[in-house]
């Protein structure tokens, strides 16, 4: 929130809905070496819904990929933290943010891992609105064909996209059922229940012979009362009063 306020632009809603999952990945799941960002054995993470990058940048700073002072430079000229993630930033595996491509890129990484006989896994976080893109389903069929069980997609099912409610803008129906129909193993969870997130990813890691998709029910703007479930907060910057209020709600009165 602070980063977006300082940048005067950004996407708070989708960053907050994804925050619990991205945090769980970076602090409990991903095999990483922050001192060696291109370590060949590392797990890969692609934030396909790249507009949620403030939460990713915060996690990378906390894991020591770069200093916290960079967080204040988000979206600014000369910053290592671009408006959407790019591969040059330490800890970022690949440029993402143009919606629909992350699953394809993850598929390529998963195929590369298979061919190199590496045991790393590739995690791709998708937005639910992003699944409107046909590209996602091209990747879904190819991943099933190549049995990339080292590929795990996580859909941030916050049910809102930029112009409104997903069901109004473009109803996707049962996203898990769609992935199942494409030959994926699927799970449906509460995307804010950290124990359930960890437990389910552990299950997905044990799946063999097919890729996995975890559809995580989330709340856009989670943790900030005036943002929760409001599509207006997809790409809007808070003012100082809103920021103060949000910080109090997230951290408690002492913040």
């Amino acid at each position: 929130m602070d980063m977006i306020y300082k940048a005067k632009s950004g996407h708070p809603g989708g960053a907050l809905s994804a925050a619990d999952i991205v945090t769980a990945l970076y602090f409990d799941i991903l095999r990483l070496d922050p001192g060696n960002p291109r370590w060949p054995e590392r797990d890969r993470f692609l934030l396909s819904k790249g507009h949620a990058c403030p939460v990713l940048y915060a996690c990378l700073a906390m894991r020591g990929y770069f200093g916290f002072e960079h967080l204040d430079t988000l979206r600014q000229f000369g910053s290592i933290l671009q408006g959407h993630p790019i591969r040059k930033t330490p800890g970022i595996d690949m440029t993402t943010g143009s919606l629909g491509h992350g699953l394809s890129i993850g598929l390529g990484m998963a195929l590369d891992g298979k061919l190199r006989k590496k045991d790393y896994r590739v995690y791709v976080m998708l937005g639910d609105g992003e699944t409107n893109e046909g590209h996602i389903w091209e990747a879904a069929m190819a991943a099933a064909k190549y049995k990339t069980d080292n590929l795990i997609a996580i859909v941030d099912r916050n049910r809102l996209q930029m112009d409104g409610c997903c069901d109004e803008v473009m109803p996707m129906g049962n996203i898990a059922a769609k992935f199942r129909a494409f030959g994926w193993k699927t799970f449906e969870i509460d995307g804010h229940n950290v124990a359930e997130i960890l437990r389910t990813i552990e299950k997905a890691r044990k799946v063999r012979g097919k890729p996995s998709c975890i559809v995580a029910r989330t709340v856009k703007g989670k943790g900030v009362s005036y943002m929760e479930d409001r599509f207006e907060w997809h790409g809007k910057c808070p003012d100082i009063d809103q920021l103060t209020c949000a910080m109090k709600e997230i951290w408690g009165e002492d913040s």
Partner: protein
Amino acid sequence: MRPHAMTPATVPTRKAFSERMAEYGAIDGDFVVFEADIGYSTFSHLFGDQYPERYFNMGIAEGNMVSAAAGMAADGRTVVASSYGVFLTMRALESVRTFVCYPDLNVKFLSSHGGFTPAIDGVTHQATEDIANMTTLPNMKVLVPADTWSSRKLFDVTLQTPGPVFVRLMRDPILDLYEAGDSFVMGGSHVLIEGTDVTIATYGDIVFEAIEAATILAKDGIRAEVIDLYSVKPFDRETLVRSLRKTGALVVAENHQKRNGLGYELSNFCLKNHVVPFDNLGLEDTFTESGSYPKLLDKYGLSKHHIAESAKRILGRN
């Protein structure tokens, strides 16, 4: 005149390129090939037959193919992505731009059916804007072989050049003019005919029309210099300038839209560096149609006669 005689080609450039790719599989054991369900047309299957574990048929889904190729190349592996030019450079354009060119990855494009060389297939399968789209992308390099040996040699150049490389290939065999000993480099060119009166710069299939145009011009006492700019981006500035200092006139002919093709690039270059009488031949803001390749060359202004006429016009000799 070059010492090599021209002979009818037995294979199209798409096949020659793929044949070399299959051979190169033994030289470089790391690169892989992605195909979009036209492997028997691009001849990429020749590689897949020998290296099935390194051949990925991604189905009729070029966008996913190119983004997945970027993912596969992210840790340094080289990927050749194969399809027709019209699909690679249009449907998959954003994947090429944002996920291959922007991160500067080793994805190479085997792009068949360039220009209107798939003449009989009609406009849906012709790639007459591919050079514009690809040369515009930062980090992308663009090569266009004209015949069998140049295709084979430029495959090696493609694999050995870091970063993205786009190679435009043709549907049908035309003629062969290069030999095994001819060398090809990124940014290179070949002066096929030496002349003193006008430079004809071209690439790919139009090389052969340009050579014949030079013969027509010779009958009128005009000595044309013909340059095969097989490396369209970067192009060989040194050879071009050396030629223009001698001839003082330039005709650019290409199987492509005039707009934003090599002609536009060279006219811009000449305006800034070496102003000469100039003309460029290509598609005049139009689509073509189904028909035989020679008929299309004739109707759309790219035959040897059109090139010769253009040269005479800028020399004031028509």
